[in-house]
């Protein structure tokens, strides 16, 4: 598991030095095994190994390095988006607009650049601002109205889904944006967002590396910064967090804007990979992000989870979606398989948490 290693440095801090001398006497030291189980991503890691072994045995093409590159690519496109969604979930909220927000971001850059014949970088910057604005709007509306995020982002999901189609049709008369492949700055942007890196004769998409770097950054953010502490606190007990002086509003809005940032990045990758954007894409992906985060051990109700877990969750997603193809099965089984994985992950997480909090 490359990705586990990548973010390992920022993982669990060393256990505190056992205080010499007096002890309460009633609490026994929690065993190493139990402490390990208390990590949110352990269940997912076990599942990932299981799925890997399964497809390694069942699908011979799965064993090739190029297949691994494909699996990792699949996982990374989803995983980059899963990270901010997971952070938001640890902070106690959902974002159902995350799937279509990716398409919105890509469309913004594509249509703006094409219609005004600008350097694509202008479109990229404007798309970034638009994505952050969508996130900020979600967060602001949530704070202002006090409505559940499920409802607020369901609204913005529908707004974005409709606007994606309608606005695209206004400008192109079509459901897809015009190709921007011959525009100024395209090649440069493509090399940033959608290039490939060859290692040992195998081409790895650059998103894989971004994914791992972002995961390491997210882990650092969660476990090593004030803001990370606040994320856990607003998700675990919002009122308590506010009472001890945590800026709850800032934290939540920032988390929603983080989802916007992720949507922008993935949107740019898709745009510069395919030169054009289908305006109806992205619907349903928001659930895949949430599923990957849950499989990765993030608590649906907030306050618990990690950034490494969602990486493993997305990797499982990539393995399953590609593994079914390599095993020559009907790809229709993919969703069914994913559903089983989700239920199993939820059960494992439940069991793990009981083990961890039991004394």
């Amino acid at each position, binding site marked *: 598991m490359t990705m586990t290693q990548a973010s390992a440095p920022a993982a669990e801090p060393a256990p505190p030095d056992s205080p010499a001398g007096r002890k309460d006497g009633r609490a026994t030291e929690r065993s190493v095994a139990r402490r390990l189980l208390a990590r949110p991503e352990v269940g997912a890691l076990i599942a990932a190994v299981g799925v890997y072994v399964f497809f390694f045995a069942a699908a011979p093409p799965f064993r090739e390095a190029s297949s691994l590159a494909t699996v990792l690519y699949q996982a990374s496109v989803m995983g980059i988006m899963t990270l901010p969604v997971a952070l938001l979930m640890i902070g106690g909220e959902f974002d159902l607009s995350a799937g279509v927000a990716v398409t919105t971001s890509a469309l913004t850059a594509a249509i703006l650049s094409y219609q005004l014949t600008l350097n694509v970088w202008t479109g990229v910057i404007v798309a970034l601002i638009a994505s952050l604005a969508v996130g900020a709007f979600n967060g602001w509306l949530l704070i202002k109205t006090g409505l559940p995020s499920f409802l607020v982002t369901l609204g913005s999901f529908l707004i974005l889904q409709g606007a994606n189609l309608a606005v695209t049709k206004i400008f192109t008369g079509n459901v897809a944006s015009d190709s921007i492949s011959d525009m100024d700055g395209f090649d440069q942007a493509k090399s940033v967002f959608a290039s490939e890196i060859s290692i040992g004769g195998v081409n790895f998409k650059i998103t894989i590396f971004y994914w791992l770097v972002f995961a390491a950054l997210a882990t650092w953010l969660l476990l*090593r*910064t004030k803001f990370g*502490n606040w994320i856990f*606190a607003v998700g675990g007990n919002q009122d308590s967090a506010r009472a001890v002086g945590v800026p709850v509003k800032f934290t939540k809005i920032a988390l929603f804007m983080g989802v916007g940032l992720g949507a922008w990045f993935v949107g740019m990758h898709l745009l510069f990979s395919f030169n054009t954007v289908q305006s109806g894409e992205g619907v349903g992906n928001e659930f895949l992000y949430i599923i990957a985060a849950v499989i990765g051990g993030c608590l649906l109700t907030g306050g618990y989870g990690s950034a490494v877990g969602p990486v493993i969750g997305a990797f499982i997603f990539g393995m399953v979606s590609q593994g079914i193809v390599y095993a020559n099965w009907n790809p229709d089984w993919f969703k069914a398989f994913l559903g089983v994985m989700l239920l199993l992950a939820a059960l494992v997480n439940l069991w793990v948490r009981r083990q961890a909090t039991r004394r």
Partner: protein
Amino acid sequence: MTSNDNGTASGGTAVKDAPGNAAPLVELRAAGKSYGNVRALHGVDLAVRPGQVTCVLGDNGAGKSTLIKIVSGLHQHTEGEFLVDGEAVRFSTPREALDRGIATVYQDLATVPLMPVWRNFFLGSELTKGPWPVRRLDIERMKKTADEELRAMGIVLDDLEQPIGTLSGGQRQCVAIARAVHFGARVLILDEPTAALGVKQSGVVLKYIAAARDRGLGVIFITHNPHHAYMVGDHFSVLRLGTLELSAARSEITVEELTNHMAGGAELTALKHELAQVRGVDVEELPEEGDVQVPAATPSDGTPDGTASETSSGTASETSSGTASETSSGTASETSSEKTP
């Protein structure tokens, strides 16, 4: 009821002659709070001085929570004045109250159950190190400090990494108090810290309240247990229906009087009369109204208002002004020897 209103008025003046002449850290003057057209708190005077425990007692719904929410910055008062160090303030967030040294230990303890003890200890006031882009939590120092502070309060935890939700109620309470003390609180507000605890754990918490007081903190101790209050309190304020029913220094009141007052005071007498109408209920052994009057209800400035209103308030056949003044000046006997026939 009239006597209560008078008690409030004179109680306000009684605050001033409380022992300890240090300037109040926190003072409420005729403060009140309305939620829409519901008046949750009205005309409350309260002073908190360094090295003193001010107890706020009251039944459920008496306005205790509203009172501490104003002082801790969760809500704003809608009438009267709220002074910190003699300066009128109006906090819009708990952060502002914390910055002025007012720390609150809430009933639900304001902890996040799934977070480790040390993260909870420093939540909202995390220690960091390093320059901005790589500014990070100083985990070693936080763990060390948390451990030291907890040990100083006599709490020894084997593993600061364990979720705080796995600690017992008393332990969590003590962590919360230790946290407030560590963060330089000058005024510590404790919201029913002993409410959910057993006898022994309550004792531990009371010990920490006394320890905090001896460190020179002003403590506001919210409770509805008069015995706990009397063990550590220097000044007692009883709230009822959003108004101050009693405000008395420790020297002016006994634990029996406090208990009676908490138990409902005048309301119990009224209930007794209602019960007397019902055949078969023996009211002979129930305390008289006079017994449940408290000194603060008798004005210290010597006007006969208190006695007069008491007479008018009680059912005239029962209470004479003599009984009232006698009881208020003297001991609080649970069952009065001088029952009027």
